[in-house]
């Protein structure tokens, strides 16, 4: 019997019993195994299966608990070698991912470095950690992120950093959900629903990345969840989890940030970064309003590109337009600042721009990509959002 505990050793961890989610209850099973209370473990896994008969991982644990009574176990998921190893490995990895996530929850004072600022209209932000196979939901607490829930997710078969159509990878970057595809418009494969994201975004296109159809979606009825690396690039959640996340999603508004491994920071550092960039943004606004075009253009990188324009074309256009103005007023509202994962100092800034001048006034949603060049924030891309 002690061999069973040993076989599970890699997966063991502390967990509170009696919690409601299947993942919490699975933790309770492992907790009992760790304590060598195998009858309790069996009872718990039986109850879990009774309630979630499509939770494949629970059957694997049950199989081990039964087999341990007949013979010593060699490994977790002690199935004969003639079965499809890929599926077995998938379940083992799912177990590890779920248990690790439970064991290593982010500390209260740790925040993802990406969510610098949320606008007043954004109620939540989604942050995905690929290595942990975990999706975190942050609430907008007066512009600052506060963790409210996290879920196990399945990502692309071939990992992350999608670059090409059909590479079965999940993109890394700053996105948002673009639509809500209801269950009745989808096959069972997508489960409880689907929410496409805007891959490839402006930054992806700039890097020459292609492909499309990256969605957040559910799972088919026959399974509770899928292996950590099993999708064609989509972010896949258990159906109850997808439904819970979906309740927080605002189409066209809620950011979805996908990282290889989330960089964590504290609120003070986040405040400092936010303040530094906010000052740059304010200076850009003031310089534009001042009609000193060279000062204004100094905010733009030589590598700048807008929709269909390089830096030279952009500069020429701005010089021409600005020289014809006797006054300009620029107002910014609903500002969002999201740091780009896996890039060195790139921040996606979105806002509502209220532009007035003699001759032309308009209100638009705008998106800029700011990057640090020689220690100074410069605009690499600017276009309508």
């Amino acid at each position, binding site marked *: *019997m002690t061999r069973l505990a040993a076989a599970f050793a890699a997966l063991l961890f502390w967990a509170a019993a009696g919690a409601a989610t299947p993942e919490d209850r699975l933790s309770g099973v492992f907790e009992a195994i760790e304590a060598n209370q195998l*009858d309790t473990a069996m009872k718990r896994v039986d109850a879990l299966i009774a309630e979630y008969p499509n939770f*494949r*991982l*629970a*059957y*694997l644990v*049950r*199989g*081990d608990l*039964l*087999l341990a*009574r*007949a*013979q010593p176990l*060699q490994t977790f*998921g*002690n*199935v*004969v*070698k*003639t*079965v*499809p190893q890929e*599926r*077995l490995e998938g*379940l083992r990895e799912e177990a590890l991912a779920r248990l690790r996530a439970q064991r290593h929850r982010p500390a209260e004072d740790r925040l993802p470095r990406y969510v610098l600022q949320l606008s007043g209209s954004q109620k939540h932000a989604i942050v995905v950690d690929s290595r942990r196979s975990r999706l975190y939901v942050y609430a907008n607490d007066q512009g600052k992120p506060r963790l409210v829930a996290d879920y196990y997710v399945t990502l692309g078969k071939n990992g992350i950093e999608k670059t090409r159509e059909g590479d079965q990878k999940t993109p890394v970057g700053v996105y948002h959900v673009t639509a809500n595809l209801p269950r009745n418009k989808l096959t069972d494969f997508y489960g409880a629903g689907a929410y496409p994201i805007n891959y490839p975004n402006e930054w992806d296109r700039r890097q020459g990345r292609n492909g499309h159809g990256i969605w957040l979606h559910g799972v088919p009825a*026959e*399974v509770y969840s899928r292996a950590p690396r099993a999708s064609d690039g989509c972010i896949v959640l258990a159906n109850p989890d997808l439904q819970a996340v979906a309740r927080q999603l605002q189409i066209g508004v809620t950011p979805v940030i996908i990282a290889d491994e989330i960089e964590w920071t504290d609120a003070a550092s986040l405040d400092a970064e936010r303040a530094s960039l906010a000052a740059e943004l304010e200076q850009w606004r003031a310089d534009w309003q001042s009609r000193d075009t060279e000062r204004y253009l100094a905010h733009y990188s030589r590598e700048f590109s807008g929709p269909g324009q390089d830096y030279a074309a952009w500069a020429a256009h701005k010089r021409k337009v600005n020289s014809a103005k006797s006054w300009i007023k620029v107002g910014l509202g609903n500002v969002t600042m999201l740091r780009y994962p896996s890039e060195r100092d790139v921040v996606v800034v979105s806002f509502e721009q209220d532009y007035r001048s003699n001759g032309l006034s308009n209100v638009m949603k705008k998106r800029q990509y700011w990057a640090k060049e020689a220690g100074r924030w410069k605009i690499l891309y600017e276009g309508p959002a």
Partner: protein
Amino acid sequence: MQSSNAPRDALRWALPLLFAFALGLSAPARADDVQDAQQLLKSGQREQALERVNRALAANARDPQARFLKGLIFTEQGKQQEAIEIFTKLTQDYPNLPEPYNNLAVIYASQGHYEKARGALEQSIRTHPSYATAYENLGDVYAKLASQAYGKALQLDASNTGAQNKLALVRDLVREPIAKSAPTAAPATAPKDSPVASAPQAPPAATPPPAADPTAEVLKTVNGWAQAWSQQDADAYLGYYAKDFKTPGGEARPDWENGRRTRITAPKSIQVAVDSPKVTMRGPERASVSFRQTYRSDKLKSQSRKTLELVKADGRWLIEEEKAGK
């Protein structure tokens, strides 16, 4: 698959003789009839056996030995429902007897009702915590339940394996109902001879068999060895051999291991059955097991006599030498 050889995972039958004289609750009215019936059943004459048993029961309707035999005859005749009724009634009238529970379990398992079989076997062990036959059977049932759970986990079509197991069991019953249990009737299994009328033993415990019965431990090891071989699990198979195992050709251990590994993993399927094993204890930590080995792969089928010399090291029985033809 149509061979008459018992597959490795067939459940073992309880031998009616085991408690024939232990009961003392009511003297068998027609002992000669019961004994005749046993002989007749052994030689496959079921109808005649049933006749004698009915005669014995006419004289004493409660005679457990006669009722047990009748249950066995019905089972062999494929009258499972009738057999279940008899064995169930026996468990109610004589709750301290492990054998009727065991045989109930064998029938349940043959019907694919592994949870029921598990319940009956756990009950059997509850009555006699050292009942080796029930332990071996329970091990098989746990393994079967585990394989069902794994099938669900991996979304395999479990119905195939289930059906195979069922067929194997029926064949076993028909061809070799008694021989299978012979080794467990060996005198070495002392606790079974204790009077059944004694106080109910220790509380239920689904723990490994107590060390009190080395014969059962040795048998379990040999069955595990055959199972690992059948499952083509080379690591598990090699794990049954002692560090100082005498390789058959005297070759170096790694060479022998590599050879075995290839032979075990190459075929599409392997079935190894251990029939009529005979355990001889050569000391508290040494044992010989002789048996008839039936090997069947997709390429080859062979039968041979085999003797394994086992030693106990760190609480585990390990194979020290393997001899063929004895």
